[in-house]
């Protein structure tokens, strides 16, 4: 029975209580503009998938990453899908910790009102502190 389980789950033994019960803190760090590279979209996909594993997931938006959350994105002219509405679906996936760096917003002339989802705007120092508390930080 135990061996069957291992095979069916790709070598991961979900019956091991110690391994499955631990909730880790994951932070996904978004630093790049939404279009031009695949990073932002890939990060979003990973975040959506991570929601299935009941971990403590948060997202941080820094540098040009803050543009990912800006309202009113029109992508027709560059012929790519506007995936920004998907950030509004995160709440339904129980991913509600979205942190945006204050300095990055200010440098780009943006405020919280320009963003399409509810976020927590934090100073660079506070985000650094938050990062230090994570078990896993994945940067895109």
């Amino acid at each position: 029975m135990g061996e069957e389980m291992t095979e069916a789950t790709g070598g991961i033994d979900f019956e091991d209580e110690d391994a499955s019960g631990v909730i880790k803190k994951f932070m996904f760090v978004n630093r790049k503009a939404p279009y031009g590279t695949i990073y932002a979209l890939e990060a979003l996909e990973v975040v959506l998938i991570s929601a299935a594993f009941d971990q403590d997931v948060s997202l941080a938006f820094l540098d040009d990453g803050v543009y990912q959350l800006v309202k009113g994105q029109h992508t027709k002219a560059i012929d790519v899908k506007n995936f920004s509405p998907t950030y509004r679906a995160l709440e339904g996936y129980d991913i509600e910790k979205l942190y945006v760096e204050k300095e990055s917003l200010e440098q780009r002339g943006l405020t919280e009102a320009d963003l399409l989802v509810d976020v927590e705007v934090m100073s660079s120092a506070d985000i650094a502190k938050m990062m230090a508390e994570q078990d896993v930080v994945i940067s895109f």
Partner: protein
Amino acid sequence: MATIDVNGKNYETDEEGYLLNLGEWNEEVGAYLAVEEKVEMTPSHWEVVNFLREYYNDYQIAPAIRVLTKAIGKKLGPEKGNSKYLYELFPYGPAKQACKIAGLPKPTGCI
């Protein structure tokens, strides 16, 4: 890439039979895909399919099953927002089958 022929018109699908161009979808295409999935469509089935299309329109993704059940429960009531109800309608996986019939891509995180 593959194509399906519905009433003399060709529609492109991926290798798993998901419609490539969401905008081409209509109820006839949905009905055709349902036959392929061996699902006999009733008003309850269409309700879920239409719900999925609205969800996609709002968020640009096909929801994971857990998210779908929760969202349906909120909109159509708890007697419909549970996996038992949805699996009765779409026995081979509501997210997968209903998304295919709705012309949506395969849900992200669907394992």
